[in-house]
């Protein structure tokens, strides 16, 4: 027991000796510019990460747009060509004299058969396409006329 106590005491003394020695050793000097360098590196990485997110987001968004456009453009175009509007409209080219003679009836028939839903869908797709382009290229919207403008 006595020997163990002596051993512990001498161990503590030895460690205290080394504490004294380590206090004598110079601490490495940190240059004044290091903090600035560290923060600039972090800011560079932040900027790079944002660009990657934008890049990835653009391709993902563009891919989804293409997939959606194929589907949503097909439907209105298909509907348009299958509608009576197209049949009446094509009379202008196939039988123009008939159209001129019965132009009032022709106008009413055209108006009645316009594929409104398909037209709205088509315009929406075009609108989203331009809006996404504006988002990724950071072009501001003109306040005066409410459409895209390049400052």
């Amino acid at each position: 027991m006595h020997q163990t106590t002596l051993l512990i005491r001498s161990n503590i003394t030895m460690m205290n000796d080394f504490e004294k020695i380590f206090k004598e050793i110079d601490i490495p000097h940190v240059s004044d510019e290091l903090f600035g360098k560290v923060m600039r590196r972090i800011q560079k990485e932040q900027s790079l990460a944002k660009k990657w997110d934008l890049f990835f987001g653009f391709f993902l968004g563009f891919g989804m747009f293409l997939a959606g456009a194929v589907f949503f453009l097909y439907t209105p175009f298909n509907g348009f060509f299958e509608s009576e509007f197209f049949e009446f409209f094509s009379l202008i080219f196939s039988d123009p004299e008939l159209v001129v003679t019965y132009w009032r009836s022709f106008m009413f028939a055209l108006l009645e058969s316009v594929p409104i839903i398909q037209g709205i869908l088509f315009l929406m797709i075009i609108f989203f396409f331009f809006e996404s382009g504006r988002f990724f290229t950071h072009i501001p919207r003109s306040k005066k006329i409410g459409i895209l403008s390049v400052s």
Partner: protein
Amino acid sequence: MNEYSDEHLVERYLAGDEASLEMLVKRYLAYIYSFIYRFVGASDYAEDITQDTFVRVWKNLKKFDQQKSFKTWIFSIAKNASIDFLKKKKTLPFSYFENEKGENVLSETLYDESPLPSEVFEQKELAEKVHVFIDSLSPSYRVVLFLHYNEHFTFQEISDSLEESIHTIKSRHRRALALLKKMILESIDPIETLV
């Protein structure tokens, strides 16, 4: 903001306060630089590795477990960054006295817990000599000594930072001190010790 704990600053940064990150960097910059400097043994690279360390810290802040100690976490990142650098440079130095298994025959046979003789402290340029002796130790020994005696880490904190068991850390500490003591004693009394 100086009175905020590290974990609180992390929470504030994740909530959008950029100044909290700057505070954390300022708080740990000198300690991390000092640690890396000791570990790699070269100031030329210590700055680059310090920058890498803080970039890694920033990238992994979202994954940091706020229930754990930020101090030991950041030091473990600094250790890994230093090791990665040394691997790239292919200059992982080992102590002159260590074999391939990391065992030091000399320290095991000469381990002596008695205090250093008082003549040691009367030596001129003691600090310079000790600096040279410490630089000759392997990084794993060096870093335990500096974390314990310079940064006043407990053995548990060193164990958490270096991701080693506490038994390994204590063992390294003993061996490092034994080696250092041998070198210091030889510098006073140049009698050769037979292995």
